[in-house]
């Protein structure tokens, strides 16, 4: 059996104001402070679409290589719930703003504009609706612009969903149209999962997995659901269409509702709004204002700059890191991009993490100062291990690489006499490993190299030390 997975992703747009009224978007503010008659659905109010949200949707459509509908229309999706004050959500139904796109190896079925629901807060010990004493509604979030992206069922595993999801998140983030923060709910992902015999082109009965707030959990949830469906079918059972919740702490799947309880949304073309008819100019300008997107950036780093695969992906998914990397390369064109990339994604990222920082933007290290350090290593004036010590100081206190090297006396030993003396001292002080090397045990050389490095405080070139040791001990 193989799994077939399709995704529905809700992206909250980071516009100034809500989708259909002038209330400011907010997160974490005092409840019900960003509301007006329109987003509280008072009698007589009318929606007016947010032009910026339409522009943002066009940007997403362009980034996902979608066709834009010449006239897309809004519909009312009717259902009663306190988080839905009009008792209908304004969404798009049969003519969405964008269709038939692609991102990486996954086809995009459609993308449409809609408004977010308000937030329910269940008062009581559990914090969930079951067993709560009362439910409160915070309408601050109600009416936030959303773009819902629906993929074709092109995904095959939880791991692929995680990887593709991260690519999508990086792509949207690059556009600057959303905060794409899954914990805050500005990016939300639902998955439709089914299984079928390998090679079949018939889709099996799907289940829908909702409300997963990280791609790790989504991966695990989907794997658990695929496993459940496989076991069910293997034991002669049948998959039932239902909505599931994956609990990442227990690893269990809970049914939220079955098909019998499914809503009839009674879709109705929204008579209060005219169709969205973007001009050719709006579509072209969206296409032309696209930044270099992560997938394209990764392949440029890989194919043109020779950056290693993993580093290329890391850099292209995080705008800030990519900018830092490009800054290093630009500061000194004698530095190999491959080497610069390794320093940025390796040593620098590790040092920042160690000192409790996530991003390079706030750190004291600038692309130019890192370029100097990398240059010193490349020209063999500073050893790799000494350079790491320098970087630690740069991250902690700032400063220029060259000055730190001088202050700390970390310049690589270039005087072969000095180095030779150190090597000989190390052999003398460690007779046992020296003897082992002499009798053919090459592994024992490590202890001797270590001793030299320690004595030189990392100023020695490890390669040169090894060469000298071998020379002395083979004689």
């Amino acid at each position, binding site marked *: 059996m193989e799994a077939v997975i399709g995704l529905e992703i809700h992206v909250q747009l980071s516009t100034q104001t809500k989708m259909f009224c002038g209330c400011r978007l907010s997160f974490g503010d005092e409840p019900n402070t960003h509301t007006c*008659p329109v987003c*509280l*659905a*008072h*009698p*007589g*109010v*009318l*929606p*007016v*679409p947010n032009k910026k949200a339409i522009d943002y949707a066009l940007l997403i459509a362009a980034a996902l290589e979608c066709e834009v509908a010449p006239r897309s229309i809004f519909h*009312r999706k*009717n259902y*009663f719930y*306190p988080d839905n*004050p*009009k*008792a*209908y959500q304004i969404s798009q139904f049969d003519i969405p703003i964008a269709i038939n796109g692609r991102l990486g190896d996954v086809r995009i079925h459609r993308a449409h504009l809609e408004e977010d629901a308000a937030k329910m807060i269940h008062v009581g010990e559990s914090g969930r609706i079951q067993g709560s004493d009362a*439910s409160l*509604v915070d309408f601050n979030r109600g009416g936030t612009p959303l773009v819902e992206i629906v993929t074709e069922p092109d995904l095959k595993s939880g791991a692929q969903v995680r990887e593709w999801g991260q690519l999508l998140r990086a792509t949207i983030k690059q556009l600057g149209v959303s905060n794409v923060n899954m914990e805050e709910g500005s990016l939300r992902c639902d998955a439709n999962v089914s299984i079928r015999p390998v090679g079949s082109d018939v889709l099996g009965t799907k289940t829908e997995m909702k409300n997963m707030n990280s791609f790790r959990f989504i991966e695990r949830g989907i794997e658990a659901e695929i496993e459940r469906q496989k076991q069910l079918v293997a034991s002669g059972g049948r998959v039932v269409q239902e909505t599931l919740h994956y609990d990442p702490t227990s690893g269990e799947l809970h049914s939220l509702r079955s098909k019998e309880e499914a809503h*009839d*949304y*009674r*879709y*109705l073309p929204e*008579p*209060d*709004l*005219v169709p969205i008819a973007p001009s050719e100019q709006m579509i072209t300008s969206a296409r032309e204002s696209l930044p270099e997107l992560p997938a394209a950036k990764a392949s440029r780093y890989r194919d043109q700059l020779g950056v290693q695969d993993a580093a290329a992906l890391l850099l292209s998914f995080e705008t800030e890191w990519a900018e830092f990397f490009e800054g290093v390369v630009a500061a000194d064109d004698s530095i190999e991009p491959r080497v610069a990339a390794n320093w940025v994604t390796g040593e620098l990222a590790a040092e920042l993490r160690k000192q409790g920082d996530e991003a390079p933007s706030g750190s004291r290290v600038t692309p130019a100062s890192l370029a100097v350090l990398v240059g010193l290593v490349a020209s063999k004036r500073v050893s790799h291990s000494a350079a790491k010590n320098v970087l630690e100081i740069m991250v902690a206190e700032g400063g220029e690489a060259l000055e730190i090297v001088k202050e700390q006396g970390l310049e690589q030993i270039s005087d072969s006499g000095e180095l030779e003396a150190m090597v000989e001292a190390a052999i003398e002080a460690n007779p046992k490993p020296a003897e082992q090397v002499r009798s053919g045990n090459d592994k024992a050389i490590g202890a001797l190299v270590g001793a030299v490095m320690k004595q030189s405080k990392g100023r020695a070139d490890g390669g040169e030390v090894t060469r000298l040791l071998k020379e002395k001990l083979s004689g």
Partner: protein
Amino acid sequence: MPDSDLKAATAAETAALIRRGEVSAGECLSTWLEQASADELNAYLWTADEAAALDGVDQNSKSPVTGVPVAIKDIFCTRGVPTTAASKILEGYRPPYTATAVRRLAAAGMPMLGKTNMDEFAMGSSNENSAYGPALNPWDRKRVPGGSSGGSAAAVAGGLAPWALGTDTGGSIRQPAALCGIVGLKPTYGSVSRYGMIAFASSLDQCGPLTRDVTDAALLLSQIEGRDEMDSTSTGIEGGISLPSAIGLEGLSFGIPVDLLGEGMDPGVRAVFDQTVSTIEGLGGSVREVRLAHASHGISAYYVLAPAEASTNLSRYDGVRYGIRDSNRDLASMYEITRGDGFGAEVKRRIMLGTYALSSGYYDAYYGRAQRVRTMIVRDFDAAFGQVDFVITPTSPSVAFGLGEKTLDPLTMYMSDLFTVPMSLAGVPAISIPSGMASPEGGGEKMPVGFQIAAPAFGEQGLLEAAFALEAALGFDGSIGREGR
């Protein structure tokens, strides 16, 4: 000047008296507030005191209507003032904002006399669907004033307001104007902002004036029309509206839609209509037959489309945020009991009709088909207006009927809108002017008969000119006790 003169004056005449300083805006307001508070017709659901009437009003405005008070249908949201749409579900509701049309009138210096009675959520043709009892027809208080803007029509005809604002979805301005012997104009869809007008059927609802004469209708429309950034379906009327002055109908052609005027019309109404047609010809207008082949299906399409939109528009009355709320702690029961108690029978009937029509599996058969009929009616009007300047019909197939006469038979009640619904579906402007008197079919005192003229979209100015010329020739001034000829 004596109060009686002020009460007899049209709004335009009153505005002129105020401008010339012959009467002060304050005197004018107190006279009319006194009239409104002496309401015996149940025309008002709420009447203002002086402070409330002037709340938000620009008294220094130099508009052509400054100082002339107005009655507002209770379907318009008015900040801090009870607004119920004549429904129990909105009992006690005071909106936090004011409708655009009302705001424009306040900005033009017009005080608000009060909020007028209506059929609940504008659903009805007799005002008997008000949760607060029907308004009465001032010509005969045992008869209905029409609906849904029955309170507005009764107030103007009964001398309780110089003029009033109403709304029309399938005839709700024109039919009560006809039944009460006054002028009612439904503008082109999109001319006037719908922001703050409690929605019944959003693709049909339009706000308009109920007045004593055609000049007043033009004057009031000129103040409310215009694009509003709060209503993305609003466009306004290009060039605005000026006061009509035509004296003849030479060169103008009028079409009678024979498909529509087949059956179901009172003989008395027919006779007045035929006489009015002769008057048009006497004024130099030419009259011929036109086809509106699908207009007779208008009522059927309307009673699918309007309830479908209403069923979703009225879903927001759920007890969560405003209005009445049942105290049940279980969500589903709270919804059911709140809505069950809050809505009247006709509103429930239409919510159920509309919910059914939108249900999956039935959508195409009902809503989809009704939309196609609507498209055909739009084309019929396009074709007709290719041949004639105006389409004319009686406004209503009968004169005002007795209270309770049709309440048990909704289908007969729905037929009251037979001649007005097609124009609503086509979105074109139409006016009803009083054209004479006729005896009710079952006998009794003569009652007013309305004459409807419809024009192409945004043809309001031409429509008002023709209505003005015809009004002068008919000599019917809308006052009770004075019959035109």
